[in-house]
């Protein structure tokens, strides 16, 4: 963790108009999530949501090796969305990114809009949509749930990293060609996504084993179905 370079996009990689554009995107997206989250939060789920945010913060500190000289860490969008829903999940990841940037100087301040767009909005949305598309498999048994969590997290990581590629194409500094950045970023994030998938599958299955009633993706599923191995 002593690396001077932050884990997320730093200030200065995008030009000022592009940074501002994604601040606007983030404000709108987080605003919608705030409005919608209310419907998913009650006395039972609000404490879980706070704990999910804290857990995502903790796991984002745990960089794991993916290639010689390259590490990766959890983004957490799919994990949060499966456990507490897409709206609350997006807020969980947003809070983590704000704490990281303002307390730990990790991730630029002007880049916060872009980082929130990628990890909290895109990552959570596509992770959740993938999980919903595969919901039938997820409600079948523990193995199905683990597989769905894995795939959703992989998709979350790859598409969140594609958010950076798009932002770089719109207003990135240094003039590196789109194809070059896209290939490099997507290639390494497929590998990171596998790690993200494993962590997400283990976490979601652990929570579902203890408290299936609290898992957002399993709402409405009779609990006995979930207790099958």
């Amino acid at each position, binding site marked *: 963790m002593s690396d001077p370079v932050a884990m997320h996009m730093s200030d200065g990689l995008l030009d000022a108009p592009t940074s501002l554009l994604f601040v606007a995107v983030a404000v709108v997206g987080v605003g919608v999530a705030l409005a919608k989250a209310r419907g998913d939060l009650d006395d039972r789920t609000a404490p879980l949501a706070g704990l999910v945010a804290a857990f995502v913060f903790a796991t984002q500190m*745990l960089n794991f090796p993916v290639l010689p000289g390259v590490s990766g860490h959890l983004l957490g969008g799919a994990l949060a969305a499966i456990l507490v829903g897409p709206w609350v999940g997006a807020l969980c990841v947003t809070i983590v990114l704000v704490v990281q940037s303002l307390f730990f100087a990790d991730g630029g301040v002007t880049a916060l809009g872009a980082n929130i767009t990628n990890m909290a909005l895109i990552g959570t949305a596509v992770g959740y949509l993938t999980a919903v598309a595969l919901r039938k498999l997820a409600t079948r048994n523990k193995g199905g749930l683990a597989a769905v969590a894995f795939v959703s997290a992989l998709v979350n990581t790859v598409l969140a990293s594609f958010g950076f590629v798009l932002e770089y194409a719109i207003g990135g500094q240094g003039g590196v060609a789109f194809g070059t950045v896209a290939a490099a970023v997507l290639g390494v994030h497929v590998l990171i996504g596998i790690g993200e998938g494993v962590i997400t599958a283990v976490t979601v299955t652990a929570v579902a084993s203890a408290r299936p009633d609290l898992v957002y993706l399993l709402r409405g599923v009779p609990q006995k179905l979930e207790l099958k191995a």
Partner: protein
Amino acid sequence: MNKRFFAWFAVVSLVLAGAVSYFADSDPDGLDHVTEQHGIAEHAREHPLAGSPLADYAVGGDDRFTGLAGVLGVVATLALAGGLFWLLRKRSDVR
């Protein structure tokens, strides 16, 4: 049951951030690696809060205290997120 489950969740987060974080890979992550490799990172500006006490998950620049920084981060995240979600929740008496 609820309390015990939530307590376990909190303890796991604290242990991951407070102890397991010492075993984290210190190589640049995927995004940093790509931006460094292609010269994009040269455009990065220093973080405006780079001199703050907890910058880079250290305490006063000393990364022997990464675990402490992690525990403080978990507590801060839990307080902010938990507080926000508790305020946002539907009150059971409203129904």
